[in-house]
């Protein structure tokens, strides 16, 4: 079954169209990575799926239901979660408060959920009361991912999860992503450092100039020499 289906979506900003009719399918349980040059519309697509930008044409289906143009808090309620590329934590809030915000729409106790996140990212458990703004890039990325996982989403969207991470942490983050996926969460990733990501991915898509121009399985895309030269730094 298709978890997320994008049909001919046109979107962008007031005076600039960025996506010129994107089609994309993210099957249930898979990891899909989108690669492409800067300005190709990768982040714009994520913002559009999440209701931060309104598409001017096309449809977005989540588990066969139309979610086109829903406001972000409604999208969250449907079971999608999104970790933006930068500024993805609340700096003046503590780690624990950041995670609590992830479950804002829930009522009642969050102890079990918090515990679950701290097990996934032990570093965070050790520093629950520390302000997120004082954390290093890697810890911040974990806070952001933890926040997004608080609601047990069915689809997790990650915009450049490994940007600004040290190599050992990059490896850790991708291990976690694989583990999260194992647990049944479908994952959509946008990456520049795409080699690690494509290794994990069932499917890889190439965006350029606001259109999807190529699609293949992750490893096949990684092996494709022309794609490598054009988009993965050879």
């Amino acid at each position, binding site marked *: 079954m298709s978890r997320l289906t994008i049909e001919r979506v046109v979107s962008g900003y007031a005076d600039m169209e960025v996506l010129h009719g994107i089609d994309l399918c993210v099957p249930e349980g898979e990891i899909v990575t989108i690669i492409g040059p*800067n300005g190709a519309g990768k982040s714009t697509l994520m913002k559009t799926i999440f209701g931060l930008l309104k598409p001017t044409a096309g449809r977005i289906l989540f588990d066969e239901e139309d979610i086109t143009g829903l406001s972000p808090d409604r999208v969250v309620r449907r079971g999608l979660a999104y970790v933006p590329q930068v500024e993805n934590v609340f700096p003046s809030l503590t780690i624990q408060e950041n995670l609590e915000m992830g479950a804002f729409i829930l009522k009642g106790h969050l102890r079990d959920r918090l515990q679950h996140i701290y097990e996934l990212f032990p570093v965070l458990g050790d520093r629950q009361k520390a302000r997120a703004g004082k954390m290093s890039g890697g810890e911040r990325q974990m806070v952001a991912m933890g926040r997004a996982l608080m609601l047990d989403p069915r689809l997790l969207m990650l*915009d450049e999860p490994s940007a600004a991470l040290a190599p050992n942490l*990059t490896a850790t983050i991708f291990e976690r992503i694989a583990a999260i996926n194992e647990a049944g969460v479908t994952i959509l990733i946008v990456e520049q450092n795409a080699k690690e990501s494509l290794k994990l991915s069932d499917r890889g898509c190439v965006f350029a100039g606001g259109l999807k121009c190529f699609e293949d399985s992750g490893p096949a895309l990684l092996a494709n020499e022309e794609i490598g030269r054009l988009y993965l*730094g*050879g």
Partner: protein
Amino acid sequence: MLVVDRLSKRFGGLKAVQSCSLTVEVGTITGLIGPNGAGKTTLFNLLTGFLKPDSGRVSLDDRDVTGLPPHRVFRTGICRTFQIPKELKGMTVVENLMLVPPKQLGETIWNPFVRPRRVRRQEMEIRDKALGVLEFLELAEVAEQQASQLSGGQKKLLELGRTLMTNPRIVLLDEPGAGVNRTLLKRLAESIRTLQKDLGLTFLLIEHDMDFVMRLCAPIIVMSEGSVLMVGDPDVVQRDPRVLDAYLGGQYVATDD
């Protein structure tokens, strides 16, 4: 040329940078690597006047620049980029770059009235230069767009563009590669190399993309827990067990050829 002597900075109980000493030689592309939280960005902030050190000294060409405010540091020729781009949102991309060169004629109150032609000519020159920089960074298409509309990666490129607008003595780059397409990053590496060779520019850069760092930088400084762990050429650093352990992680050994 850039000498850092026993620099320290603490935030509350956290020693972000402690007794950190290092030297950047003229004409090198020096890499600065280390785990997240090792104090690399804090060090940059100390070098460029965004933070005041608790103790220690920073000097550029034997001139003490410790504790100068950022704009004065900039004028001594230390130029930097930010990890998270700080673009001027309300201006176009090309205007963002045109603002960079200091002491432009049109910045005084009277010049635009008294010498309008010279002001305009200088502005055209700066504009041409800015457009050239944008061309180089593959941003020419978006030159007239509002900077706030750029994609995350494009904003990183604009950051780099700012440093190319002046003639700095040393350029500090804070993760130029994060969020930048790898093919473009490879071209950036080439152009950094060109700037170093042809213009004799000196670079100090923080980056986590090891392909980029190992190919481009020499020497490489490894920071850990606020001070320098080791300095060495790429092949030495790559094989150092402490670096492998604390930073690169096990998987790097396997892919090392």
